[in-house]
């Protein structure tokens, strides 16, 4: 099965689980000035992101993901796109746009390693309610 790893600005390290989930897939980053403006990513942060990309085995293409990835997929007959998961509504909208442009391709979201895995959903009303629930696993108490 052929596919690609779609990297975005929230997962810029080679040890992110998205890379190990499909080590044979080429990784691609889509660089779009309009997206950068919508995501409030200024030029200093763009420089930082580009510097991170220079150290990764990733091809950088100019344009929106919903335009670049279908063209890339067209050339290579892929069946799957794997992407780092995110809570960002702007990125999630890009995911939806790519899926809409490539309806026959599976878009699979891969979560990063969790910082803590609480036994129950913590109360997020205030930080210290959350901290009191996750402190032990966060501190690696119990040899987790």
């Amino acid at each position, binding site marked *: 099965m052929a596919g690609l790893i779609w990297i975005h600005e*929230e*997962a*810029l*390290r080679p*040890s*992110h689980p998205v890379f190990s989930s499909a080590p044979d897939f080429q990784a691609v980053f889509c*660089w779009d*000035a309009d997206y*950068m*403006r919508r995501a*409030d*990513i*200024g*030029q*200093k*942060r*763009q*420089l*930082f*992101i*580009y*510097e*991170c*990309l*220079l*150290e*990764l085995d990733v*091809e*950088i*293409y*100019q*344009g929106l993901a919903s*335009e*670049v990835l*279908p*063209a*890339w997929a*067209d*050339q290579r007959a892929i069946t799957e796109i794997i992407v*780092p998961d995110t*809570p*960002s*509504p702007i990125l*999630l909208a890009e995911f939806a746009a790519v899926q809409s442009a490539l309806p026959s391709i599976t878009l699979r979201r891969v979560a*990063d*390693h*969790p*910082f*803590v895995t609480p036994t129950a959903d*913590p109360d*997020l009303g205030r*930080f210290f309610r*959350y*901290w009191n629930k*996750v*402190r032990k696993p*966060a*501190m*690696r*108490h119990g040899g987790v």
Partner: protein
Amino acid sequence: MEKNLSPEPKRLPHEFASRDALIDFIAQLDKAPDDMAAGSHPPDRRASPIIGGRQAALAALAKIDPVAYASSRNHLNGAVTGLSAYIRHGVLSLGEVRDHALSTVGTAKQAEKFIQELAWRDYWQRLYASAPDSIWTDVEAYKTGFSADDYENELPEDIAAGKTGVACIDGFIGMLLDTGYLHNHARLYVAAYVVHWRRIKWQAGARWFLQQLIDADPASNNLSWQWVASTFSNKPYFFNLDNVARYVGPDIDITPAANAPLAHSYERLEALLFPNRAADGER
């Protein structure tokens, strides 16, 4: 019939002669079509001293001192780690930073304050995932004696340019504009000045920070602005010049004459900033 393939998208380079060449390249990519035609805005060539990439991230990680961090992190020249941009962009995972911190201390307790700060990031991300659209709306009402309608929508030019006339605030904004980074305590000072002294909606300041900071995360950034504004806390955060003087270094002008709006007692500032708020003995 043969299928028409889409044209191959334009591939961007991996090789640059220097960081300056990369800065110029990004400025070109970032130009809006209108800018291209008019040649209006000169590119902003100010770059952060924080270098992107895993190698730089690991070098910064190797230098952290969780014990010194715990005792000095609130000071602008304290032992802060500079890891925030790497964590924000997934160059380092929270777990690997935590595990490294624990490996540097004799007892886990010595790293607890540092790990608690990592947990703040995890907390903000969980909140973001649970209600992604809430980060641009007031979580709760302002507790300042004013309603949201009493706050201006737009960030004034003098704030965006760091020319407010309040010396320490202008010093902090200058750091932000020059480096894309600002110590967390200075972020709180600037945010409180924008929201409470100038009565600007926190959203305007939050968007400006997102655009300027290289480590800004919409959840951490916006919910911290809401914490300052009191729309995600029980009271507004504000400060006075005495407080600034305790935490900044010699490169920030803290003379009362150059910082007149801040040079008051907390009681006086409470009355000046929140005249409608019933005196409740806080602070």
